[in-house]
């Protein structure tokens, strides 16, 4: 069972009380964006076999959206962090790089 620590209420929540929200840190395309950029924003996904940054909602708890960094192969959770950021925290990225040699980075 997947267990994530909610960075808001601090509860260790299992997946039955969480709602998955898909890939995190997608850059929204503005009115001047090209069709290709808009398509890519809406549909194209990294879907990596490895480190994945994603959005979750503590749906049956405090109700807040947050972020998680997780490995899609080992199911290891590297950490969770609040939603009000546009990129993952530096310390978390450093910790992941150490654990996953050769990791190509979050983008």
């Amino acid at each position, binding site marked *: 069972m997947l267990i994530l620590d909610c960075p808001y209420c601090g509860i260790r929540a299992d997946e039955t009380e969480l709602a998955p929200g898909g890939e995190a840190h997608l850059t929204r395309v503005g009115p001047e964006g090209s069709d290709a950029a808009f398509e890519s924003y809406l549909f*194209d996904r990294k879907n990596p076999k490895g480190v994945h940054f994603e959005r979750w909602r503590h749906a049956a708890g405090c109700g807040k959206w947050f972020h998680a960094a997780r490995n899609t192969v080992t199911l290891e959770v590297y950490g969770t962090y609040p939603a009000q950021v546009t990129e993952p925290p530096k310390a978390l990225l450093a910790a992941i790089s150490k654990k996953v040699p050769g990791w190509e980075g979050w983008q």
Partner: protein
Amino acid sequence: MRRYSAFAIAREALRYHQGWERAWASPAPKKRYDAIVVGAGGHGLATAFYLGRNHGITNVAVIEKGWLGGGNTGRNTTIIRSNYLQDPSAAIYEKARSLYETMSQDLNMNVMFSPRGVIMLAQTEHEKRGYLRTAHANAAQGVDTEFIGPEKVKQLVPIINIDGPRYPVLGGLWQARAGTARHDAVAWGYARACSAMGMDIIQNCAVTGIETEGGKVKAVNTSKGRIETGKLALVVAGHSSELAEMAGFRLPIESVSLQALVSEPVKPCMDVVVMANTVHGYMSQSDKGEMVIGGGTDGFNNYTQRGSFHHIEETVRALVETFPMISRLKMLRQWGGIVDMTGDRSPILSKTPVGGIYVNCGWGTGGFKAIPGSGWAMAELVAKDAPGPLAAAFGLERFREGRFIDESVAAGVAH
């Protein structure tokens, strides 16, 4: 290739079964092929088969990182039906269903196609209206389906509980020509036929890189060396994003785990396939007597071929409510497969940003039924560098153009 027949069985019985030859060869890869198919699941093998059979292209390799049929093709619950809502879906799934009818003869391999009929239960008013609509759409598409009432459902499935407290059965969408087939035999049959045409099926060989030159494919790098090709078909289901990344583009695909389980074998008790989409579960009985059960996917990206426990619990709970007699069955095995989900729950058969590279993916939770139709359409796309009528609507450009083939309502549950 020595043909399988009743006569061959008699002949071999008389000589202690010494004369059976290997079903397919296991050659070392050549330096170059006219076309390479990555992924020896049903869709990859069927693509290769129709490249040879329909287009005369036989200098083909099918490259598989594990063993052939070891991906979702060997992990699915084998439901075959074609009662989809949208016209492009009905066309390709119905083509596939009709090819299943003659597959055993076409491949000279008994794939045990069993057109036992599939019922999709309507358990809410909304679902009932949805299926009535699908039945009308199917009539217009020439797909033989019918909406049946609860009494007919009970008659077809005596073990069903039609007046459950939460979701009584209000009827169902019945496709009498739908059914099941032996999944491994489908993969084996295509592999044997491809090998007989002189194609190379290369197992235990992972594609690790894709070389391009001037926007066109040049070669693939594999764990058995570099192999050149002018045409490359990526048919790797849940691993499509990984292969696309090697070629430098992204796909509108996310990989999630879908699980199935089987019970201990019991005496024959249900001779049709029943799907209960509202409560999220479906069940059929295998020829061995096991109840074959499937349910929902995990909601998050996953490559582990395992899946979450609470999903099995939900599925089993739903099915016990629908078929009370299974409550005391023991479950024997559970497994998962990594399915490739698109936003509109329809597949992708398409050219890509790289010349000579084609993708066939996005079949998600329901592509076993599509194998022959998909192979037929994909071979045409690869051979002619342009989609034929079956594949045309399934191109990648549909996402940019907002021309979705929305089957998410029609396929509320995984199958």
